[in-house]
């Protein structure tokens, strides 16, 4: 790359007509009739909600994957001018004309269409002929499941697009490297594109990590060869390793953070999932808690009126609560209670969540002037705002967790059971010994003075007498830190009323004073990512969920949509010829690979060195890509669907053309055999097309088939094809 560009500047354009043709066919198959049906199809009901929320800038949390995928869908909605006003509640609900169906579905369909030329180029780049590449492109083109999955507002096609792009750019990069075009602009371009595509794939779904790790392994093996290359100087090797490390590791991490940054920038309004987040996070959103907490005093002082939220937020976020209602004298199992006022954790905002921090040495329940802040290690009493009773615990077994102590609001029955209502405040996340107790920011542990028990959310719910609220206990055995023992002040104001009646009025009125505070992006990111990974959804089986073993032979399908009146329907159902030939070629590949490997070990070389390294690379990309995207599902405990297999399948169906060419070139010796073989391949390709045609009514949802025709398409007993009873 030396010298100034030579004049005159000329552009030579080469157009691969085959490539253009397959791209056009990809676009045609994916985009044809894309607005049909104008109704919510399967998981659109799920992704649609998030698109609407993006349009309205409302914060949400979704544990299914990082935000890039949702943002891409939302971008489509933005292009179509969608205003977000649609209730996504039911599969099959008709879209009104205000929903731009075409642009909502456009981006996934484009991604699906572009996967076809990507497949073509990957096979070329692996060193196989254009004929084999054309075969691979045709297989991707005619795979009904890939077509169906691309045509709706779903994320798999986007994921597959980025996966293929990452693999292709890495292969391009590698071939530039082999041609010794080190550090040339195109070398950099393909390397950078690899990094970007990997980041995007991971950003769309966590599943992208599998292929990313595979590429890292391949890149690592290649880098290891670079390290061992005696022609390169030590500095050059260092440059190579650092360049790869920066682009393939650091860049994706930065981009991934970028997606979250954009996500948080877009979603700045309060929304339905706020309560999952910590108070500090919620306070950073516009509206909601921010409106309440804006202007709260920062330091909790004697006389402060506070609500205490449990930090664990599981099973639901809740606040320390008491109400007029006593523990029953005897429980169902015969144990007795103190019959004092119940203390619970209540998952809704309520005036009974207010507590007043009282100095045990003084009588006042108001904040003195100047306020005296409560510090780590101070002893306080907590007075329930509405009933003016003191938070108390004693050596009585708790209702649901008998190994811990009951927590109550103390009622003096004059039965030699004295009040034990002193609590030591321990600020868990303090930086110094005498740190002040701060609103929202501080997590505190309340340690009972008499028994050293810690106030804790047990996780059990009380029965009907406790209105099914959550049980709060004091645990003597509690050691170490657990979120169920940590509480933070969410709402806070300085109490002003001396009289109980006035105070009740004051508690009912909303609070307002100002303190501004902001969470850093990294803190928000860390919290959001952590919540997304640990958010537990009730994992129940779905009518169309399946197990990984059923995928490989396609024993299962998913009904995506059924016409409200006719038999027209859309299914995720694969092209059975493609699936089985992919499986067969996988076995052939494995057998041949083992055979060659063992023979080479004994210095018997059946194929030339070049073909062998090609063959190994194909294995790493196609078989490796299939394995890393498939096998991990056996260890997952979440609800799985057939569409989870599609990335693996995409890699697997690149294999048949490659294996066929290999057999043709290296195994068949006689021209007659080769001719016969080519004829067989043609027959096979036409059967692929025929199956694609016959199942296309289930892929495109039109034309409508009769019940008999539908019955004849049920090739396996385990497929659920819906037939309307007349």
């Amino acid at each position: 790359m030396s010298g100034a560009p030579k004049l005159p500047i000329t552009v030579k354009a080469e157009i691969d007509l085959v490539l253009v043709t397959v791209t056009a066919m990809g676009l045609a198959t994916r985009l044809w009739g894309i607005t049909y049906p104008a109704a919510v199809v399967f998981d659109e009901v799920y992704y649609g909600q998030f698109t609407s929320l993006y349009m309205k800038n409302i914060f949400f949390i979704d544990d299914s994957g990082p935000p890039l995928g949702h943002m891409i869908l939302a971008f489509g909605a933005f292009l179509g001018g969608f205003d977000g006003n649609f209730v996504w509640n039911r599969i099959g609900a008709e879209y009104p004309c205000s929903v731009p169906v075409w642009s909502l579905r456009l981006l996934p369909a484009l991604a699906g269409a572009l996967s076809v030329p990507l497949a073509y180029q990957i096979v070329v780049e692996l060193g196989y002929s254009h004929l084999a590449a054309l075969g691979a492109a045709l297989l991707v083109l005619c795979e009904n499941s890939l077509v169906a999955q691309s045509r709706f507002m779903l994320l798999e096609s986007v994921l597959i697009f980025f996966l293929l792009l990452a693999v292709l750019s890495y292969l391009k990069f590698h071939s530039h490297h082999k041609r010794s075009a080190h550090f040339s602009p195109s070398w950099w371009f393909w390397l950078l594109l690899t990094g970007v595509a990997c980041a995007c794939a991971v950003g769309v779904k966590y599943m992208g990590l599998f292929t990313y790790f595979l590429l890292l392994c391949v890149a690592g093996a290649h880098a290891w060869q670079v390290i061992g290359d005696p022609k390169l100087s030590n500095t050059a090797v260092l440059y190579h390793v650092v360049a790869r490390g920066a682009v393939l590791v650091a860049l994706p991490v930065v981009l991934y953070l970028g997606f979250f940054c954009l996500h948080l920038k877009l979603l700045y309004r309060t929304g339905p999932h706020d309560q999952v987040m910590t108070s500090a996070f919620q306070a950073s959103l516009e509206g909601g808690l921010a409106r309440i907490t804006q202007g709260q005093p920062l330091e909790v002082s004697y006389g402060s009126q506070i609500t205490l939220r449990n930090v664990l937020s599981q099973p639901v976020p809740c606040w320390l609560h008491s109400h007029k209602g006593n523990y029953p004298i005897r429980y169902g199992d015969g144990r007795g209670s103190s019959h004092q006022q119940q203390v619970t954790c209540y998952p809704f905002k309520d005036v009974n969540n207010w507590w007043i921090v009282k100095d045990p040495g003084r009588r006042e329940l108001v904040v003195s002037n100047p306020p005296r802040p409560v510090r780590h290690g101070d002893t306080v009493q907590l007075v329930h705002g509405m009933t003016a009773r003191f938070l108390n615990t004693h050596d009585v077994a708790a209702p649901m967790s008998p190994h811990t102590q009951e927590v109550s609001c103390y009622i003096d029955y004059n039965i030699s059971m004295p009040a034990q209502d002193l609590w030591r405040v321990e600020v868990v996340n303090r930086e110094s010994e005498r740190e002040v107790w701060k609103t929202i920011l501080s997590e505190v542990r309340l340690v009972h003075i008499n028994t050293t028990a810690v106030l804790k959310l047990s996780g059990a719910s009380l029965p009907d007498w406790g209105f099914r609220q959550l049980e709060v206990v004091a645990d003597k055995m509690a050691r170490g830190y657990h979120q169920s023992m940590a509480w933070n002040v969410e709402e806070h104001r300085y109490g002003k009323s001396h009289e109980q009646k006035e105070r009740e009025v004051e508690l009912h009125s909303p609070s307002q004073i100002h303190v501004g505070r902001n969470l850093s992006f990294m803190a928000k990111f860390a919290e959001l990512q952590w919540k997304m990974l640990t958010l537990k959804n009730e994992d129940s089986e779905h009518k169309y969920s399946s197990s990984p073993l059923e995928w490989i032979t396609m024993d299962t399908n998913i009904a995506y949509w059924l016409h409200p009146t006719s038999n027209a329907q859309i299914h995720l159902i694969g092209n059975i010829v493609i699936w089985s030939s992919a499986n067969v070629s996988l076995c052939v590949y494995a057998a041949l690979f083992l055979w060659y490997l063992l023979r080479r070990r004994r210095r018997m070389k059946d194929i030339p060195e070049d073909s062998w390294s090609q063959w190994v690379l194909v294995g790493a990309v196609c078989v490796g890509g299939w394995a890393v995207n498939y096998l991990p599902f056996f260890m997952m405990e979440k609800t799985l669907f057939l569409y989870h297999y599609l990335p693996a399948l995409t890699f697997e169906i690149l294999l048949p053309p490659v294996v066929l060419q290999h057999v043709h070139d290296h195994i068949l010796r006689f021209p007659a055999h080769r001719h016969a073989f080519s004829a067989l391949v043609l027959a096979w390709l036409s059967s692929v097309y025929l199956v694609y045609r016959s199942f296309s009514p289930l892929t495109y949802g039109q034309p409508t088939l009769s019940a008999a025709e539908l019955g004849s398409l049920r090739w396996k007993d385990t497929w659920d094809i819906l037939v309307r009873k007349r």
Partner: protein
Amino acid sequence: MSVESRGCESEYDPKHGSSALRKRVTEREPHKGNVKVAENTETRGANNKHQNHSLNPRLKLQDIGGTEHVLGLKKCNTPASTTSAHQEWTVYSLILVALLSLCTRFYKILEPPHICWDETHFGKMGSYYINQTFFFDVHPPLGKMLIGLAGYLTGYDGSFPFAKPGDKFEEHNYAGMRAFCALLGSCLPPFAYLTVLELSKSLPAALITASLLIFDTGCITISQYILLDPILMFFILGSVLSMVKFSSHRERAFSGSWWLWLLLTGVNLAGALGVKFVGLFVILLVGMNTVRDLWNLLGDINLSLVLFGKHLLARVFCLILLPASLYISFFAIHFLVLNKSGPGDGFFSSAFQSRLIGNNLHNASMPEYLAYGSTITMKNVRIAGGYLHSHWHLYPEGVGARQQQITAYSHKDFNNLWFVRNQDFKTENPTDPVEFVKHGDIIRLEHKETSRNLHSHLHEAPLTKKHFQVTGYGINGTGDPNDFWQIEVCGGKPGDLVKVLRSKVRLIHLSTGCVLYSSGKTLPKWGWEQVEVSCSPYLKDTPNSQWNFEDHVNAKLPNISLEVLKPSFPEILLESHIVMIRGNSGLKPKDNEVSSKPWHWPINYQGLRFSGVNETEYRIYLLGNPVIWWLNLFSIALYVVMVTIAATSIQRGIQLSQKARERCRVLMEGGREMMLGWLLHYLPFFTMGRILYYHHYFPALLFSSMLTGITWDTMLQSWDLFVSPPVTQRIYSGGVAVLIILFLYSFYLFHPLSYGMVGPPAHDPSSPMAGLKWMESWEF
């Protein structure tokens, strides 16, 4: 030649080294790799030129492997004086290590004289063997059999109930069982010592490893009680030692000791797997090592394929067939010894139960054919299927219709009893003649305890959403047409009578056409973690949809002695494995229970209370010596850094001295083995859904400790790259001494964890452990 001359000052005699080199070269001249060893002393340029020829990095590794033989040969050639002195030292050290570990493990072994922690399980199971009572456990039987045997041989009669932790042993003889476990636990340091010695050929490395294990309070505590862990670790480390020894006999294939170590490896593998399924990891380790070994043999062109076949067969026999047959024979003994009915019966099929003396199916006697009005229990035919069960609880809101739950339950219980009724809802007259149930009849099953009918309808089943919900419906046996089921005998024709125990039947729901099905999925807490029962619209014949009648009581019919088909041994074996695996994965942490996480373990985050809670009690706390554990953790990082440097410099073709190459080899081969062992025994826990405990880390700790020994030994030796040899020597011996003193001192500090603490807990300044609570999460 400068590299070689530096070697002259080292403890190995350079003259012998180089002569051995030459000798080897002449011996195996045709090998390119060995020629390269000879050329090592040449200048860098020459070496580079050579590397251009060999593009395959593997070849380069091989020539490092070559040096090993060189050293081996050298040892034989060295005059007897140094070698035998060296060997004497290793023997003395071995004796010292063995003595120390016996002392530390047996000290206060009888304390505390009450049940500690899981002794309640394993002691109880040992007693079951002595009493020959059948029980069910999630682990394979060998460990408990050995405990039982040890108890039996030392005079324990199996009469102690082992009811709960804290119960006093009183006059029962528990010493034998504890001593047996402690004895196996004492073998760990010597085994680790020998393994590291074999891998690194360095006495200090072996001594570091041995002292890590001897002075680790965790290893001591876990070896002192009636637990499976010392037995498991004994077999794990036994397999590793035999594998390493076997590998070192590479050059003497098919010699007596070669066979011995190979056989021992197989025996130990069977032992490890026979104690706990964790043994699978060490099998994986040995398997990977064997595959690599075979791969190298296959690459040796001089080795004929016939000879290679012999190698292959020897390994298949010793490492697959032998362990498998041993493993199976453990089970055979297990089933042979336990021939009396006990607490584990209900987990197994009716056929299995009929083998057990005292079970109601043993020489069962009941009416032969199913009749209306009989009281029955129905068991799912699926392996380890449960009894059809119901109880006074409704399905919760949001789970289908709010009617009574129907589940499958493994334990024998009066709620498993059902009446067989005919279609009409009126009760039978006791004087009516007996009517038998026939294939194709429409029947109704009424739950004896709650008088509800088995019922199904078009609601989703709770877990298997493709199926319909099955409920208990109706009052006092009066329900609706959804209570009708058609009974089909598998392989029968209309009119066939239904044989109790022997007929497999299907129940087809009359109005929806679905079949009564047990999916094997565990219901959540509202269903008491029993197994789901649903009605499947898919009529494919599977064991899940087949049931058999197990108990059958009908006063009007004569009881006939039934000879149930005794199951074959392979059937029993398969069944017990499925039950065990299901039991294992069923051990889920309860809601909000703070369970131990794998990342807690290497940082020694939290231990386990073995005995005692409050101030006055004698407390034992299972916690590793933090100095040792943190050093182990740090050493893993150190190892990764060192091995990266070593591998990169070899890959770059940097000229290394003979000694440095030898160290690289130890690091990359010996270290790799240990690192792999650690990874294999640690990482899988991250994917496990079952409840995990701190003590699961101990097998991994063994590997981690051996890695520490190798790493530090190599690191201390490698100072010669920076400073002169005499200084290196001083750093080396000083470093090893400091390490061992450090372990000793930390052991002195923390020994009360193992040998018992009394008095206030550690956060109290007056406690004997005051100031040692270095982490907030430790509970002593």
